[in-house]
């Protein structure tokens, strides 16, 4: 059964790679209604700015690295956009959307489908701003993604996981890093091949416990 689902997924992926998904409301995502949010009890960050997907091909280390190295829009590794901002990639205007997920993970398949956008063979940019009440050292960013992804914290690349993979909590974990007191920008590029796509992210403290005393403000 699993094999059959995979085959079907791959087949659908092939079809969807060239066509947009039928537009359907995202059941797990909503537009933020509060100025800030807190991580879940398990530390997962639920508020993100996500750019509508960009076409991308390949999940190997080198293909993903090439995809994230390519410049699609100005300041793509530094910008903290506003909800509703648009960028032009190729000839296509793409819009940043602020979202809150109801779950521990952010369902990018739901996100893209809600915009009537492709869900396969695409790259999603995601940004959030984590406010730390104090400087915290020995911290790690811990993520899971479907599929490959590359992550930056305050402009430093900290995680790269590649290949066709499913979202597993704490799959990719950064080396120890320090969070500044105040805002810390977390940025991700998630590359999907075919089928479902999502990600989750949280910070772990020096004892590998989830960091929950954070505030997410998107600025």
């Amino acid at each position: 059964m699993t094999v059959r689902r995979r085959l079907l997924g791959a087949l659908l992926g092939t079809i969807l790679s060239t066509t947009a998904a039928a537009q359907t409301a995202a059941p797990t995502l909503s537009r933020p209604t509060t100025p800030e949010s807190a991580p879940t009890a398990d530390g997962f960050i639920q508020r993100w700015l996500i750019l509508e997907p960009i076409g991308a091909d390949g999940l190997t280390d080198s293909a993903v690295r090439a995809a994230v190295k390519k410049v699609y829009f100005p300041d793509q590794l530094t910008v903290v956009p506003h909800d509703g901002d648009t960028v032009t990639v190729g000839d296509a205007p793409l819009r940043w959307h602020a979202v809150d997920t109801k779950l521990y993970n952010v369902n990018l398949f739901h996100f893209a489908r809600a915009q009537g956008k492709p869900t396969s063979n695409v790259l999603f940019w995601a940004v959030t701003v984590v406010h730390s009440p104090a400087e915290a050292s020995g911290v790690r960013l811990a993520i899971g993604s479907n599929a490959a992804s590359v992550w930056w914290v305050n402009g430093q690349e900290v995680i790269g996981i590649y290949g066709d993979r499913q979202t597993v909590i704490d799959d990719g974990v950064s080396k120890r890093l320090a969070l500044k007191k105040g805002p810390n920008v977390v940025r991700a590029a998630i590359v999907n091949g075919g089928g479902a796509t999502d990600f989750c992210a949280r910070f772990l403290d020096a004892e590998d416990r989830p960091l929950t005393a954070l505030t997410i403000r998107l600025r």
Partner: protein
Amino acid sequence: MKLAFLGLLLPAAALAQGLDGQIGIHDPSTVVQCNKRFYTYGTGGGSLISDDGWTWRRGAALPRRGLAPDVIHIGDRYYVYVAANIGAQPRAAVNMIWSRTLDPESPDYKWEEGGVVASSDGVEDSNAIDPGVFLDPSDGRLWLVYGSYFGYIRLVELDPKTGTRKDPGDTPRDLAINCEAATLIFHDGFYYLLATHGSCCRGADSGYNIRVGRSRKVTGPFLDHTGLDMIRGGGTLLVGSGGRVLGPGHFGLLDLGDGVQRFSLHYEADLDRGGASVLDIRPLLWRDGWPVAGDNLASGTYAIESVRTGTALELAVEGMPVGGRRVRPPGPPGPPGAGPPGSGGGFFAGTGSPIPPQDVTQVSAQWPAGNVDVRMANYLCQAQQKWTITPAPGAGGYPGSPYFQITIAGTGRTLAASEGAELVALPAFTGAPEQLWRIEQFPDGAWRIRPKAVPGSSEPLALSAVGASFATLAKLDPASDKQRWRIKAP
């Protein structure tokens, strides 16, 4: 939490090498530590000393010479129990001597006589030699077992404050027959009586083997895994002859409180050392409530897989599928061919011929020069996932094993601890302490992998699977499943 037993993962043909240095001894006592040095005493009064538990040298003789001593550290005293026949066997006595240190260079090195703690009169069914001393961790009571073939293995109680017999008028209890070199240990609510069966002192013809029974009470009865009482000859085999070493005997528990257990023993004949009687230290494992003799890690090429995540340690380089990358054609798959592989059916029928192992020389040509990160991934038999583990020459060791170097098989790419307590693969092994690894087996059979040194850190750290795709070095924690690894044939 009951952990699955993980011990039987090493290739059967792989043999660990024995200890290093001067390891000739017969009937060694339990190995004990004094001021971080390791000591053991054998028949005839000789001793062996080691600074690290791996390389041994001859030490000072005891003032009282005899048969098969045992030693225990309680408070500020080291008590040595040593037996001698006083006339024809089985007339014998166990004497106790004590000192505040085992270090002959210490000003406190002075042996005091403690007197006879057990004896046999030459008529009774006992031969009061081969003492084994046991401090019960559950209640602090001190016990001595002794005996050798003539009749019974017997138990008497000692005074933990003085090491002497608690009540000289107390009648010894009979625990076992047809064995010698007995000792007691306690584990998870059971007392275990370990004793050596078979014949000693016949070189490569010695049938010595260590057997065990267990009881809820220190006074027995000690039953083996079939329910047979050791006083009727029972005993579950812990370790017998194997490989190039014959006649294991004289079990002694070595527990340094670091989450792994070891035991000392001697082999009657080490074929690689001309059939000499030699000391060894091996991992002590536990399976279904019974002790199992583990093996120190042998040189070889392995996959290193996290018990927690099931993913394997690898160089962070782009993997190439074994046999090359094959792309399934678009469209629905056809059925596998009815004939031999490759005869039809498309992608799922394979190539039609055996796919050889990956050529590391070929694939590593694509790897970056210099330092490379280390990560974890699903094991796919790829070159960057196969680690050759070999003793590092002249680098010393720890109880039972030498320090190892860990390199990607067929290359010089060497696993090393890096600044910030992280990992890196260096282009070549240079022998620096951060490239040396201490690899020890947990009682459940999983392995712990520790760097000898970490730049910028003096804390004991261990390889830790902090994520499914990422490993780090973390504070030593024997309870953490992140620090448990399977070392498997690739």
